[in-house]
């Protein structure tokens, strides 16, 4: 089963950094031996500035070589219809191209489509012209029928996580060989962004017929690389696809995705040369990754956010009609606002994320085309206390906060706990493991919970399901007719300036409800050896390897 995945010939010689290593060893020894005495010199890592966003590396690359990328967690099913993790999307970028893609400015550009779509019938039909002469990894031709097969599978396969995204779609029609016409129940602008994500991935109809639900063990799409093998928990191996329409531009012979959960170990493997790319570097390691010779750092503002969801009406499960919850924080928006005002976002960023992310207070973070750019209100303890008095609640107001079991979320929870305490909240923390937490959130079995959303390109993807009545992730049970109306308007309005205005109002309304308290906008940090050129890391945080390769003249 196992193939020879790396040999001495295609791996660059390991780089060793003795001086740094020795210094670290000395530090460790110093702490171990000297213990509590003050004999240790400054141990804190130097704080280096990351500077302006860095998303591309234009240096020319030579052909050949294997690139090993370390992911933070193990991807789920490699089936675009059934996949639901963010790391899975990273692997898909190398082997499953989409009808549309995203560029460095978070604009949607054609990928397997030949041009931007044309709309008709007041936005109810969308016509997409396809790129010609494209073949899947198994040699099958990619045509309108293949696109229809994939879209229909996304819409109808049992257990499809795309089905809800594509709900506005009523039918897909292959018009000739290279044109697909989509019919919608009503105009739905966010569709384009979905077609630039997993819903827009086209799978080989031959492979679908042959493997059916077992497609995950033989994923076959159009992409610079094609699936070779997977060892669960360890690696996913992709080889250069000679059938790819732009194969001449692809330099690397092979890409290997490995799972290395611990950030320090990811960095150590980068230093030793065992891997060349470290995905999702934690803020703690960013400083070290910056000062490390031989490493370059890509970083772009993420489309997502860290926040808190307060449960104000979810009694029968998300999606069900909201009920009444009789806690101060659910009952009175003033109490929620007071909670919000007790939090110092800058300090949260400094303490929890080493100052490597940025504070935010809305669902559409900066850098995205619809960002509202509003300034976050500063921490205001006096006002928070005034609001609590006005709400006539007895302090301390007890709040149970559900956090995940990761050390990072533990830090976030404890910082929030300490800050809210000063305003008159007694926050107790319940670390809850992933699936249990999801279950509690869905069922409404929580008072407050930390949220971490990876973010979507279209503003609707960051708002609709979270704030709309009956939204699948409206865990807080928010139900506001005005918000619902604005969501519908935003989805149906095509002109960007008009749409932007709608979302500005929508964001204000959502913020005023204080059901989700938006706190931090993360930055995508990807650490890469300097020997590798041509990588791209955009706002979606995905590592694009199509143009990557080892630098010319390097060993």
């Amino acid at each position, binding site marked *: 089963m196992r193939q020879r995945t790396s040999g001495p010939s295609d791996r660059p010689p390991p780089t060793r950094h003795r001086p740094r290593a020795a210094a670290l060893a000395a530090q460790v020894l110093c702490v171990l031996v000297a213990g509590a005495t003050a004999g240790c010199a400054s141990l804190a890592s130097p704080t280096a500035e990351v500077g302006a966003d860095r998303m591309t590396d234009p240096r020319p690359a030579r052909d050949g070589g294997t690139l090993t990328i370390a992911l933070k967690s193990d991807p789920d099913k490699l089936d675009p219809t059934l996949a639901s993790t963010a790391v899975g999307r990273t692997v898909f970028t190398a082997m499953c191209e989409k009808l549309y893609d995203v560029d460095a400015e978070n604009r949607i550009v054609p990928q397997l489509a030949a041009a931007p779509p044309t709309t008709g019938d007041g936005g109810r039909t969308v016509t997409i012209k396809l790129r010609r002469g494209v073949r899947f990894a198994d040699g099958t031709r990619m045509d309108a029928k293949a696109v229809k097969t994939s879209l229909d599978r996304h819409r109808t396969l049992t257990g499809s996580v795309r089905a809800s995204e594509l709900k506005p779609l009523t039918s897909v029609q292959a018009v000739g060989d290279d044109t697909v016409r989509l019919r919608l129940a009503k105009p739905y602008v966010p569709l384009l962004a979905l077609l630039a994500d997993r819903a827009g991935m086209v799978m080989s109809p031959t492979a679908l017929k042959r493997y059916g639900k077992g497609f995950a063990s033989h994923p076959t799409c159009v992409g610079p690389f094609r699936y070779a093998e997977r060892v669960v928990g360890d690696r996913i191996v992709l080889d250069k696809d000679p059938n790819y329409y732009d194969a001449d531009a692809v330099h690397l012979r092979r890409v290997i995705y490995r799972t290395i959960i611990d*950030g320090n170990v990811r960095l150590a493997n980068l230093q030793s040369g065992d891997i060349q790319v470290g995905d999702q570097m934690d803020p703690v390691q960013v400083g070290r990754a910056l000062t490390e010779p031989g490493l370059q750092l890509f970083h772009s503002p993420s489309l997502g956010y860290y926040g808190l969801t307060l449960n104000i009406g979810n009694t029968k499960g998300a999606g069900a009609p909201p009920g009444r919850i009789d806690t101060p924080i659910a009952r009175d928006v003033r109490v929620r606002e007071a909670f919000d005002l007790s939090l110092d976002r800058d300090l949260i960023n400094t303490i929890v994320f080493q100052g490597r992310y940025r504070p935010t207070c809305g669902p559409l973070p900066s850098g995205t085309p619809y960002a509202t750019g509003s300034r976050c209100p500063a921490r205001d303890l006096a006002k928070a206390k005034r609001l609590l008095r006005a709400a006539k609640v007895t302090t301390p107001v007890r709040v149970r906060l559900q956090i995940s*079991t990761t050390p990072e979320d533990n830090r976030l929870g404890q910082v929030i706990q300490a800050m809210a305490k000063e305003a008159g909240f007694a926050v107790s923390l319940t*670390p809850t493991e992933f699936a249990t937490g999801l279950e509690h959130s869905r069922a409404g079995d929580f008072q407050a919970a930390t949220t971490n959303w990876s973010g979507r390109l279209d503003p609707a993807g960051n708002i609709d399901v979270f704030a709309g009545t009956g939204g699948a992730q409206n865990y807080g049970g928010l139900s506001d007719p005005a918000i619902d109306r604005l969501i519908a308007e935003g989805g149906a309005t095509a002109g960007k300036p008009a749409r932007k205005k709608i979302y500005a109002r929508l964001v204000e309304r959502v913020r005023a409800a204080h059901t989700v308290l938006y706190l931090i906008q993360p930055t995508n940090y990807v650490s890469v050896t300097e020997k590798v050129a041509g990588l791209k890391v955009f706002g979606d945080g995905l590592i694009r390897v199509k143009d990557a390769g080892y630098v010319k003249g390097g060993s």
Partner: protein
Amino acid sequence: MSAAATALPAAEERARAPLAPLSRLRLLTRNKLALTGAVAAAILVLIAVCAPLIAPYDPARPDFAAALQEPGWAHWLGTDDLGRDQLSRVVYGVRASLQIGLLAVALAFAAGVPLGLIAGYYGRFADSVVSRLTDTLLAFPFLVLAVGLATILGPSLLNATIAVGVSQIPAVIRITRAETLRLKHLDYVAAAVVGGGGDGTVLFRHILPGALSALTVQATVGIPTAIIGEALLSFLGLGVQPPSPSLGVMLSSAQAYIAAAPWMAVFPGLAIIAATLAFNLLGDGLRDILDPQGDSR
């Protein structure tokens, strides 16, 4: 022959008349190993009990301005990622660890000793049932069992204790059962049975006291195991509820800073080693005193 002849009455005597507490204590002081362990354990218990007096700071109170300070005069063991005093947290962490160690062992004994007695004494059906139960628990990897329990129960000091305690039950059952089997064939116990002593009398008057030495040793072995078990659960985020300190929680939060602030991992690690070492030493010493032939467990 002579060795066996002298060994048997000695064992009987030991079982029939458990040593008076005082003479046990004297034995303890004569055995250097046990003494070291006992003193170390006593110091740890003292630290745990007097934690509020020893800890220079509130272990749960963050001081964001003082985050990640290396060991120095203000904070002997440095501060953690939220600026909390490491020394205070280690002290309270030892307290939490001991609490979990003792409670988990108590739980394992409360469930395991009666089951072991029943299985060993009544044999036959009861033995089969209990033995299959024990085998089933033993066949599960500890971590899967503990992680599963902790996930179902949710994180808290008590639940971590339960998860760790349950995984120790099979060992306690096995030892109690083995001791009961051994003791019930000894002449004096057989005599008591023939003499018309009720089952309860025989079990609690004769068998339990006889098994006490083996159980004492098991308890001292169980405590460090439980401490490490808690650390492991907390390390996976399933242990004590934050911001309460526990040694495992401290290690868990230290992991991200292992290169930037190694003191965060070193001191709780040393504290765990100290705690487990103390009880392992004590256990070894007790084993030498109570079972000089060298118990095979």
